[in-house]
């Protein structure tokens, strides 16, 4: 490889790209989708609408699965029953996002976290955002509680929980 001093490829510099000095074609496409929530997550979303967090129990491994699923992927059998769990939990991990999903900068940083939900099996939780707290005050294992949208604004979506806030003052 070393004998070959120059590898193939023609880099395009930023200025060349900006000035459109080579041939290309631009196109935008809009794709629209409607995703079915499925038998388990539909129940979860109904629960959120009522201000409750629901899991599914597998009666073989006895795990309470949150987010719920129709089947236990470990035992590979259908789950058995709905279990209401608390709307509190602890922070498993968190980070502070300064970017949007197209890599543009956010106006204001957003704290995101994986929340282990109380009364679900250990380590079980989901992704959400934190509010009513400064980034520097957040820590792993911090106790948090869901802050719900008002009942009449809840539509059966993960965003029916506005954010989680610290339980401790």
């Amino acid at each position, binding site marked *: *490889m*070393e004998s*070959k*001093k*120059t*590898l*193939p*490829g*023609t*880099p*395009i510099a930023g200025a060349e*790209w900006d000035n459109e000095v*080579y041939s290309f074609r*631009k*196109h935008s*496409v809009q794709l629209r*989708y409607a*995703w079915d*929530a*499925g038998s388990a*997550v539909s129940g*979860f*979303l109904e629960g959120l609408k009522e201000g409750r967090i629901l899991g599914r129990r597998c009666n073989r491994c006895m795990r309470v*699965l*949150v*987010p719920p*699923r129709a089947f236990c*992927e470990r035992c590979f059998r259908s789950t058995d029953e709905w279990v209401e769990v608390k709307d509190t939990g602890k922070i*498993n*991990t*968190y*980070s*502070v*996002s*300064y*970017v*949007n*999903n*197209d*890599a*543009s900068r956010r106006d204001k*940083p*957003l704290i*995101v*976290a*994986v929340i282990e939900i109380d009364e679900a099996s250990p*380590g*079980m*939780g*989901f*992704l*959400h*955002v934190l509010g009513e707290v400064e*980034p520097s005050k957040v820590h*792993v294992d911090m106790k948090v509680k869901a802050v719900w949208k008002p009942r009449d604004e809840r539509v059966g*979506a*993960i*965003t029916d929980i506005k954010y989680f806030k610290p339980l401790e003052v």
Partner: protein
Amino acid sequence: MRRVAVVGAGMTLFRHRMLETGKEMAFEASRMALDQAGLDIKDVDSVVLGSAPDAFDGVHMKGEYLLDGAGGTCKPYTRVYVGGGTGVFVPIAAWWQVASGVADIVLVVGEEKMSPLLPHPQYAFWSIFDPILERPLGVTLLWIFSLEMRRYMHVYNVKEEDIALVAVKNKRNALDHPAAQLAANITVDDVLKSEPICWPVKRLDVSPTSDGAAAVVLASEDVARRITDDPVWITGVGWNVDSTYWTNRDLCYPEYLEKAANMAYRMAHISDPKKEIDFAEVYDPFDYKELHHMEGLQLARRGEAPKLTREGVTQRDGDLPINPSGGLLGVGNPIAAAGMMKIAEVFWQLRGEAGKRQVKKPVRRGLAQAWGDLMQVGTVVIMER
């Protein structure tokens, strides 16, 4: 199972944006690999191609789109895909064919052209998340890696400055790589003071998005002995995929990678990888991932990789060189091509052909590894002289 050799390797430059199409890049890397092996396309029995999400190119049959450039026309041709783990999975899928006797010579190609997607390739990754429970939160790919990095730091009490040492090392190693996109002499302070993107991830903790291609040629023992005095043998392969319910797993340790590595170690009769692996190219799209992966590969005990890095063990002249190529942080990260770059680097290092990048100690056995999707895929290849 038949023995399988690597007999040639090739790659293009890695750059943010290249004039060449994906097909043209695949051709250049493939031609170079065939030339090094002294083979022509008519000698090739079968072709395996790896390329990551179709959304980068906006072409929804990317395997077929790239076919002609990868030399696959009118041959048994397959595209394989396991997210960021693809680059090291392509040679595994090719190995099946030679080891089983289905083919004697297989061309293995990794290609990625990320630049077409506007405004930024990052946007395509939005669609790997759960559409009901995660996308409505505005999730970005950087969230999950910063969450994993933070969890790793918490459980093993790892400091940001220890993690930054990986970026410093790899970008410096890349100064000697002719394909490198982001080679640089930087300091730990530069990394710590670089702009926060998704804290604890900062600008210099992350590899770039890239266009590029890399290829190798695999051959059966009979063919390899005939065409080269210097074959490199694939002696172990392993792969493993953990649950997509990533918020139900402890992200501090990659169990799936341990399983993939153990599969490869068993095949290669390795019982003490830390002693028996001479050097490794581990997947480093973020600097903390090099440490995380060293531990999953059991090249370091859990939480021990930062210490080995601080002590210089992982430098090119250290006892266990890690990413002598410069890795994804320095050479660039055209996803499937980046993993294949690691395969090519192990091949060149084992043949003593890595030039200024050649590790100091004599090497007989190297390992390449890749990782991807929702922090759930581990792919491992072990190669020996």
